[in-house]
């Protein structure tokens, strides 16, 4: 491993080059700025901040204002073999934007404009640094929605959505960001600006757009995207059903999709998560699991979808709770993201392993992971969400509290190691929407198997000096 931290002379020289490109006010080498810019939303980072530890710092933070400036900045970095960690909202939950080898953080927050709304094709062209909620509010004014509502909506940027292959709570109907993106603009490590054309489908070789979605800054910097828009639905209707066990609830979900019904929201809380999230507000039998559904669209379509879903749920033992629990979740869907006295006390740490699997494996993955994680004295609660025709995701949420930092970080790692191992053993995939970053980096090769070699070779060709976000996505560092 090569040490990347820059000595003061090189740092000053590179900072000067960067100032010439973006202007002096958009480059900083001040330690305070690097400390604040390191801050992300990885629960381990947050726990370390609370414990008074420092996160890894960049030597320089640069804020380009255009794709051309990004290109020039990368040319300088590539020539001088300086690590580049792209950062958007700094809201990632896996440590993907932590500059673990110092160098440069390339911050896209100034690139925050909507460039065009194509009403005829229902598309929006937007710069990568725009905050999700700002984009949603902008398109709402024109009668559209992105259909992309991750919990981090207020903090994460378009570039971060794409870099991590993010998903929103309504991905069952609208899709994940890869389904919502038609065109991309990416700048490669050597400064080459690459554009993939925004078309609904094509048959001109492999889809290169997909290569960069989820690349987490390791293959280039995403600077712009063309995203799909949907008319704001005429109606969003909620329904909730409680099941006596996880198995029957999962069966109901599978059969709803099989009946060609696509709810916008499907969230199925296991008994622990139901108790934690809902039992204070609704009279739910102990040990029951709650299914939350929402249906979007014209009234007639919603009527049909709701009626069929309710029938299927009841045939599988579902007890009707009306719209209460679902509506309450919708109104409070961002609340769980806030710190509380309980979750931040002492050396507490929690996290979510958001896995995905097909229906034939989903329940086994859930039970195996739960057993493996609970073996480390962790409290584990889960919900199945982001469900599709062929399977879906599980949010394996864990929480542990330890007497000191060292013990807490070690416990955290053991829960992750054994949780992911159980997932892979049972045929699941280790992330549905959060990405890899640092938290999953060491598992990437096991997850991808032989296809990992493809990723490594692509990395070698596109970033021959290994400057792009080293240490992430299992791709190591420059040799």
């Amino acid at each position, binding site marked *: 491993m090569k040490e990347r931290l820059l000595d003061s002379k090189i740092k000053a020289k590179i900072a000067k080059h960067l100032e010439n490109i973006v202007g002096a006010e958009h480059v900083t080498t*001040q*330690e*305070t*700025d690097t*400390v*604040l*810019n390191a*801050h992300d*939303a990885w629960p381990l*980072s*947050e*726990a370390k*901040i*609370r414990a*008074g*530890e*420092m996160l890894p710092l960049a030597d320089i*933070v640069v*804020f380009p204002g255009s794709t051309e400036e990004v290109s020039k900045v990368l040319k300088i970095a590539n020539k001088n073999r300086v690590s580049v960690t792209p950062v958007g*909202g*700094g*809201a990632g*939950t896996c440590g993907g934007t932590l500059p673990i080898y110092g160098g440069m953080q390339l*911050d896209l*927050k*100034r690139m*925050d404009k909507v460039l065009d709304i194509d009403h005829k094709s229902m598309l929006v062209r937007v710069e990568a*640094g725009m*905050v999700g*909620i*700002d984009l949603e*509010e902008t398109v709402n*004014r024109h009668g559209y929605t992105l259909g992309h509502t991750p919990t*981090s909506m*207020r*903090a994460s940027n378009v570039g971060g959505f794409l870099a991590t292959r993010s998903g929103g709570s309504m991905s069952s109907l609208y899709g994940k960001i890869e389904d919502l993106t038609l065109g991309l603009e990416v700048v490669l490590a050597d400064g080459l600006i690459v554009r993939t054309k925004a078309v609904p489908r094509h048959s001109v070789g492999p889809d290169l757009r997909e290569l960069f979605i989820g690349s987490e800054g390791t293959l280039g910097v995403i600077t712009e995207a063309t995203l799909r828009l949907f008319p704001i639905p005429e109606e969003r209707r909620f329904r909730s059903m409680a099941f006596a066990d996880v198995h029957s609830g999962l069966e109901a979900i599978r059969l709803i999709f099989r009946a060609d019904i696509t709810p916008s929201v499907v969230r199925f809380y296991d008994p622990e998560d139901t108790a934690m999230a809902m039992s204070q507000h609704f009279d739910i039998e102990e040990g029951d699991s709650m299914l939350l559904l929402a249906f979007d669209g014209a009234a007639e379509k919603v009527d049909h979808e709701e009626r069929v879903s309710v029938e299927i749920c009841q045939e599988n033992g579902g007890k009707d709770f009306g719209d209460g629990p679902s509506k309450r979740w919708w109104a409070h869907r*961002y*609340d769980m*993201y*806030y*710190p*509380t*006295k309980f979750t*931040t006390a002492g050396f507490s740490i929690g996290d979510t392993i958001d896995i995905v699997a097909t229906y034939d494996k989903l329940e086994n993955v859930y039970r195996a992971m739960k057993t493996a994680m609970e073996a480390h004295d962790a409290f584990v609660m889960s919900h199945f969400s982001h469900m599709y025709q062929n399977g879906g995701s599980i949010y394996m949420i864990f929480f542990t509290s330890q007497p000191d930092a060292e013990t807490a970080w070690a416990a955290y790692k053991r829960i992750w190691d054994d949780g992911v191992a159980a997932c892979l053993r049972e045929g699941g995939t280790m992330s549905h929407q959060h990405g890899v970053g640092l938290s999953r980096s060491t598992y990437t090769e096991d997850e991808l198997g032989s296809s990992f070699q493809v990723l490594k070779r692509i990395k070698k060709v596109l970033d021959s000096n290994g400057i792009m976000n080293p240490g992430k996505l299992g791709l190591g560092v420059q040799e």
Partner: protein
Amino acid sequence: MIYDEDTAQQIRMCAACPKMCRHVCPTFLAWRSESPTPHGRALLLHQEITGTRPLDERAIEVLYQCLECSHCLTWCLPEIDIADIVEIRRRQLVKEGRFPSGLNPMVDSIHTHHNPYKEPHEKRTDWLKIPTIDGRSLVYFIGCTAAYREKSIAQDTVSVLSSLGYQVYIPEDEWCCGSPLLRTGFVDGALEQARHNVEILNNMDAEEVVATCPGCYRVLTQDYPKHGLEINKPVRHIAELLQSHLKSLPEFELDGPVTFHDSCHLGRHSGVYEQPREVIERVSKGALVEMERNRDNAMCCGNGAGLRTLFPEHAKKIGAERVQQAEQTGAKYLVTSCPFCKNMLESQAKDRLIVLDLPELVKMAKKQSHVKTD
């Protein structure tokens, strides 16, 4: 440690939050960086508390890149008021002599001239014409901005109050209320101004005090009492007073919709949201249209807590954004109830919107309704 245990715990929580309020932080908008953000400020303070890292010069600058608008508090489930926390640290920084030198001219001016604008004290109110009428006595605390920069607000306020039957009195020797000093940490200097103001106000024979500036209003009603300085008569903001005379206010047809900008001091810091709206609805015959961000979710104009003094270009950027938000409503008039906000918003609106303070709107209605009657 300058913070109590509860506050230190709040700082700790805010420092490691996944940025749930950053999207409404005006200074995040102005700088587009993680530094001037609520969680950024908290992180610096948390690291200082834990001994991880002391505040350096840049960190102090970041703590002064805060408008203390408390917009973040509206979006904070654990209800952490970073504005209050920042102000506590600013007070200490001033004691330590580690505040930005860019504040010195403002501090000196208030000490010497009793206003932050370096204007001669003797000219504070000598231009103001006060009608003599046989009515209820009221003291109008003008405030520095209406006295020197937004004179039409002061003159229209006097005119409107007189027409409502008040005999208006102006303190002969009113000093700066101290708000700019308090918000930037200069408590001793502020209290010097405050003690003087309380003394002259308490010696005046009147039934109540009214202020047009929400900064003054907040200081007179909240900060003075916190420091043991009590004004011996009720203090109201002009919006509250006008609302109490709703049926006596003139009405007129405006040639376009009106939108209202909530001042942070009046809204989030004093809870006065509905009174100015009721006044606008009355005088404009229901022409009020709301901005998307209104009431406790209203964006700051960019002028507060020393930001305009230290970082004028960034303050203007915030003001320009607020004007754009007003334009999105399709309004022709942007009304606020704060001379300081009006000053900023008008400078950024240029000729795209007509920007008025509340008493100016009422005066306009009075004029128009007279024209029609005549």
